[in-house]
């Protein structure tokens, strides 16, 4: 097997044994990006010189016998809404097309201090708003399993980069499913941690009460490794929670005895693709055979999740994106009259269609006379949704669902129908509204050869349970070993 086909754990070991250097490894990934990214278009920018220099430093430290971090020499891709000092951070928006980060995000500091190699910036839906990467102002990204289908979104570039072996692991962000949905479409693992587990310092804000950074990987061990390194308290994000980070790597291989798995019968009714339903039912059987108890649960307010989300997220976005005024950074229009017209022209030119639409929805829902009917109502429904999960977790340890209603859809199919695009998030949104950790892992393939994802949810701060439960399934199956073939 080629170097880029290996897992992070294997690559760490190969380096420790002296079988490969960090520079050789980084070059192998850079070569693969060079060879295949013209087809996949996962990357917006690749930092060849910076990556090789960082790899050289890892090799020097190793040779000198200095201590090395947990991610030493691992080539990692970064969603382009995370600030890396000296790199552009565009959010795939014309608004930020020339923005250069003057500082590092917390997660980037963590990666640097663990000696990771930052390969480059990956494509996303503009400001992380979308489910296909088609809302990027710069390029489409193509699903490596079938280049006519979407990689998912918004973190589609980070998912496609890992699936196509153009990075060993990557970082994304998840506001309504933006890690789990692309992980599902691309046949890899994607973890959204508990809200507050990972500092959002240096993550360009979309909807601050929902956004959370998390890892993509080929398997559970690699996802656990990256999760563990980026988690923990950071005073620069006032919503970062000061709770101990469990040593998820040391317990990952221990199965959970007496595991109680909750399933929601309504999830298998209308709108669910039959092959997805079959794959998820098979996954339930795997857990049953492992001795888990399968319990039917009710989440009666699930069906209101998308509606609550598409009020709350646009409201928060309309407020967060008010900072783009053409004054401090970002695009400024050339032609305008007074100051207000400068704002209007700069924002009208800088933002794309979906971003404008959401700013408009949010502004409308927050405007005088509508606040109670929309925003306040949605926040009340949010509490009922969160309460449903709390009740369910009295009786079960994890909740099992499909990640998405269908396998990857064809590029272009949903572009003109924003509401239909939003309904892609139906299974993932609840975890964001309630602040729960969720993971998507490969659990099957459609007859068209497209990956199918299984989602597991756990109570807040129970990532250790979540990862162990997911690992139990992974150990019994080989879906996570399947890789797309690129010509």
């Amino acid at each position, binding site marked *: 097997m080629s170097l880029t086909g290996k897992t992070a754990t294997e690559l760490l070991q190969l380096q420790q044994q002296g079988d490969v250097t960090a520079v050789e490894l980084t070059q192998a990934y850079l070569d693969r990006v060079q060879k295949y990214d013209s087809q996949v278009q996962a990357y917006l920018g690749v930092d060849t010189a910076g990556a090789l220099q960082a790899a050289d430093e890892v090799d020097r430290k190793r040779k000198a016998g200095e201590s090395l971090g947990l991610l030493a020499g691992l080539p990692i891709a970064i969603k382009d809404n995370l600030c890396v000092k000296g790199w552009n951070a565009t959010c795939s928006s014309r608004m930020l097309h020339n923005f250069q980060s003057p500082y590092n995000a917390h997660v980037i500091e963590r990666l640097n201090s663990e000696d990771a190699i930052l390969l480059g910036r990956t494509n996303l839906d503009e400001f992380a708003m979308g489910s296909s990467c088609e809302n990027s102002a710069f390029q489409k990204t193509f699903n490596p399993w079938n280049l006519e289908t979407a990689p998912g979104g918004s973190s589609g570039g980070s998912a496609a980069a890992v699936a196509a072996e153009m990075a060993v692991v990557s970082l994304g962000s998840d506001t309504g499913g933006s890690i789990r949905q692309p992980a599902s479409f691309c046949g890899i693992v994607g973890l959204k941690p508990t809200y507050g587990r990972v500092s959002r310092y240096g993550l360009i804000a979309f909807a601050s009460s929902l956004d959370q950074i998390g890892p993509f990987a080929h398997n559970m061990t690699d996802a656990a490794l990256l999760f563990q390194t980026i988690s923990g308290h950071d005073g620069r994000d006032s919503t970062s929670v000061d709770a101990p980070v469990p040593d998820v790597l040391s317990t990952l291989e221990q199965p959970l005895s007496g595991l109680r798995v909750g399933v929601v019968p309504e999830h298998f009714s209308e709108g669910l693709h039959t092959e997805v339903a079959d794959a998820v039912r098979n996954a339930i059987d795997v857990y049953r055979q492992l001795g888990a108890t399968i319990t039917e649960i009710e989440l009666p307010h699930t069906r209101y999740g998308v509606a609550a989300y598409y009020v709350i997220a646009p409201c928060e976005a309309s407020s967060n994106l*008010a900072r783009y005024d053409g004054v401090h950074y970002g695009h400024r229009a050339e032609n305008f009259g007074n100051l207000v017209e400068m704002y209007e022209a700069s*924002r009208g030119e800088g933002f794309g269609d979906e971003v404008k639409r959401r*700013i408009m*929805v949010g502004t409308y829902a927050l405007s005088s006379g509508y606040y109670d009917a929309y925003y306040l109502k949605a926040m009340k429904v949010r509490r009922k949704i969160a309460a449903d999960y709390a009740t369910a977790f009295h009786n079960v340890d994890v909740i099992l669902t499909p990640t998405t209603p269908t396998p990857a859809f064809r590029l272009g199919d949903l572009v003109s129908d924003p*509401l239909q695009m939003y309904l892609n998030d139906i299974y993932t949104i609840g975890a964001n509204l309630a602040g729960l950790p969720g993971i998507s892992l490969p659990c099957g393939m459609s007859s068209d050869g497209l990956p199918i994802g299984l989602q597991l949810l756990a109570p807040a701060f129970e990532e250790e349970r979540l990862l162990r439960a997911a690992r139990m399934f992974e150990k019994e199956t080989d879906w996570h070993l399947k890789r797309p073939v690129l010509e």
Partner: protein
Amino acid sequence: MQLSLSDVQKVAKLSRLKLSDEEQARYVDQIGQILNYVELLNEVDTDGIEPMAHAAELTNVFRDDVRKESLERSDALSNAPKSDGKYFLVPQILEGA
């Protein structure tokens, strides 16, 4: 919920977004559809329910009022569309100034 063209224009003004005629027409339909869909929320009885603004529901987090390092002025200005090296420059806003 039927949205009118003037509703869209008003919201665009509040949002500080300059929209083309074509965009305005499209948003009348699309935003109207989205608002119609979220009407679904009215099915839920929320009497006496506290709104949930945040997933973590932390109380205020304070830090000591001490000076810390911050961005250098040159770094803070480095992405400004217009600056004179000391300040962000904006169009004149006071007449006769």
